[in-house]
Each structure stands twice: as structure tokens, then as C-alpha cells.
């Protein structure tokens, strides 16, 4: 194990950390935490997307949905595999954890019930993933993860394109199809804005930034996301509750509703007249949402069933 001074110097100089014996215990802890959030998010997107992909309007659309789900499982594998190299038990992480202890964004706990909602998820949630992972890919101080993300970035780009192409097509169709798209955007847009977490004004210190596990702050990532999603939605004729301002010669994206505010997950409805505190939001996040248990059971139950029959056969 190197000294603290050697480690500090590596972080400061922009050098990549390559193995466990180059890390301090604090860095290892923070890296593992960041990887668990990433692995859990990729993993849970598979059942979330699958339950909606079943409503695909054609075989071709369904196959695209399945291809995306396969990508997400491979992305999860990358994160969990690195965790295994760092001493965690991958099987335990995936198959033996309590559903509530999974660390993916709350948005995935709200059911995607239609193909339209799935393509909005590709357009908005995958865009959020693209911003978060793109930043990590760019800045991450842990070499194996930075390299592993090459594949992830190429594929997230494809998910995003699928989402955008379909959103544009549905919007152009007009009528009830477009109304359904607008309704999906109405509840999914604010959930994606929330994805990036506490505003910088409330989060004084970020160990992740200090260790170069990421490069941008929550608000910077949120602004990046808004700067891609808002113009695109406007371009295809879909309304979103945000607009551009120019401040000090720079584009700034402002929300047209109190952030955060009250959300009813069963009705999939935001109440813009009811501002909330971040404490309220954290309570909602920790309680998890409607589909948490069902989705985790989808992969955990099969695993334990398989293992049981396997043991019975004496192998």
C-alpha cells in the first residue's frame, strides 16, 4: 500500500489509479459506493424496461427494446465485476440484498406502463445516465472503470437515439398518440430533473469530486441534461416546464415549477402548487416507489429457485 502522500499526489496529478494497493481505505469506500449506484441503476433498468417492452407495437420495436435491455445487463456486469475485483461478492450484491437497499434512482420505481413511456425513458432517463456516465468516463480516476465505460457510452448513445426517434415519430403522428406522449413527459421530466440529486447549495462537500470519481457537480450535470432535453422536446412540439435564460452571457436553464415539489407516484402526477423540501424528497426516495419489490423479485426469485433445484440434484 502506498502512502497517503503518494495517493494524494496521484489524485492531484490526474494519474489513474489501477489497483487496490494504490488506494486509501476512504477512496476504496467511495469508489465502491459509486459503483454500486451505477451497477444497481443499470441492473434495475432491465426489469423496468422489460415490463414496458412487452407492450411494443411491433416485433421490430420489441427486438430493439430487448437489445437495449441486454446492453443494460452488460453495463451492470461491468460495474459489479469491478466491485468483485475490489473484494465484494457479486452474487450477494445482486441476489441476496433487500430490495430497499438497492441504490438506483427513484424514477425507476414508478412503473413504465406503455411503449410511449418506455421511449420517453430512453429519451430522458438514458440521457441522464449518459450525462452522469459521460462525466465519469471523462474524469474518473479509477482506470478499470474509465476503460469499461467505453462500451457503455457507445451503447447509451444508441438508447438515446431510439428514444428520440420514437418521441419524434409519436409527436408527428399527432392526436391521441401525441397526447399520450405529452402526458408521459409531464410526469417523467421532473423525475429526471430530480435524478441528479441535491442542489449544490445544499451539498457543501463532495468526496466524489475530491477523488475525481466524477468531474461535474449535481447542478452542472442537471444543467447539461436540461440543455439537451429541453431544446429537443421544443423542437418536436412537446411542452416541458423549463426554459432558457441568458445570465452573464451564459445559457442557463430555469425550471418553471418549484423544485422540489410534491409527487403522487400512484397517479403519476406532480403538484406544482405544492412545493416540498428536500427532506420530503429524501423520505420518498428511501421508502422506494411502487415497483421496487416486484422488480427486484424478478431476478432474485428465479436465482434462488434455480439454486434450490441445483442443490437437490446434488451438483
Amino acid at each position, binding site marked *: 500500500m*502506498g502512502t497517503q502522500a503518494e495517493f494524494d499526489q496521484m489524485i492531484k496529478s490526474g494519474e489513474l489509479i489501477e*489497483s487496490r494497493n*494504490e488506494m486509501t481505505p476512504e477512496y476504496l469506500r467511495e469508489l465502491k459506493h459509486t459503483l454500486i449506484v451505477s451497477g444497481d441503476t443499470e441492473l434495475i433498468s432491465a426489469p423496468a424496461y422489460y415490463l414496458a417492452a412487452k407492450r411494443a407495437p411491433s416485433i421490430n420495436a420489441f427486438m430493439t427494446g430487448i437489445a437495449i435491455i441486454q446492453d443494460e445487463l452488460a453495463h451492470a456486469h461491468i460495474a459489479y465485476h469491478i466491485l468483485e475485483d475490489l473484494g465484494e*461478492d457479486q*452474487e450477494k450484491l445482486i441476489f441476496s440484498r433487500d430490495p430497499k437497499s438497492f441504490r438506483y434512482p427513484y424514477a425507476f420505481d414508478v412503473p413504465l406502463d406503455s411503449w410511449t413511456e418506455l421511449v420517453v425513458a430512453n429519451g430522458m432517463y438514458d440521457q441522464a445516465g449518459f450525462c452522469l456516465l459521460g462525466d465519469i468516463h471523462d474524469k474518473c480516476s479509477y482506470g478499470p472503470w474509465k476503460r469499461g465505460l*467505453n*462500451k457503455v457510452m457507445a451503447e447509451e448513445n444508441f438508447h438515446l437515439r431510439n428514444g428520440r426517434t420514437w418521441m419524434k415519430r409519436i409527436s408527428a403522428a399527432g392526436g391521441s398518440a401525441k397526447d399520450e406522449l405529452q402526458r408521459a413527459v409531464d410526469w417523467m421530466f421532473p423525475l429526471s430533473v430530480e435524478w441528479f440529486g441535491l442542489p449544490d447549495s445544499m451539498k457543501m462537500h463532495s468526496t466524489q469530486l475530491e477523488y475525481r470519481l466524477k468531474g461535474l457537480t449535481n447542478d452542472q450535470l442537471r444543467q447539461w441534461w436540461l440543455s439537451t432535453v429541453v431544446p429537443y422536446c421544443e423542437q418536436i412540439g412537446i411542452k416541458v416546464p423549463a426554459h432558457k435564460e441568458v445570465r452573464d452571457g451564459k445559457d442557463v436553464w430555469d425550471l418553471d415549477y418549484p423544485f422540489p415539489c410534491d409527487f403522487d407516484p400512484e397517479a403519476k402526477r406532480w403538484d406544482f402548487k405544492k412545493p416540498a423540501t428536500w427532506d420530503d424528497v429524501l423520505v420518498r426516495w428511501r421508502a422506494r416507489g411502487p415497483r421496487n419489490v416486484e422488480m427486484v423479485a424478478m431476478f432474485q426469485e428465479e*436465482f434462488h429457485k434455480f*439454486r434450490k433445484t*441445483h442443490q437437490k440434484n446434488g451438483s
Partner: protein
Amino acid sequence: MTTNYKRVTGDAVEYEVFARKTRAEPLHQVGSVVAPDDDLAMAYARATYDEERWCEMAIVRKDHVIELWQPGEIA
């Protein structure tokens, strides 16, 4: 590997996956898979690392790789 638990598929081992996009470039490591035998490892590698149209792909058991030194070690 720091753990020696048994996976559901038995004693699986790790394989490194190598690939390249064009004839002009050298093979490079694109990831790894864990599988109980070579055949499944090939299938996993092909299915998992399908982000490009590789002109070559190869896998090797990680425990067959002989490390001379690693980053941070003196050559």
C-alpha cells in the same frame, strides 16, 4: 480474486476479452467475462461485447496470463 465462493454454475473462472475494430490496430482488452468453461466464455464474450463490429476477438483465461509487473511496480 479475493473470494472463493462457488457460483450457481459451479467453479467459474475469469477470462479476459480482447478485440480490435480494424486490421490496422492492435488487439486490446475490451473487458472480461466469468464462465465455467471455454465454450460458455466464448458465448458470453460474443454476447456481452457486441458494441462494435470487431474484425477479431479472442479470449484468454486470466490465470493463464503471466504478469511481469503492474502499474506502480518497478520494472
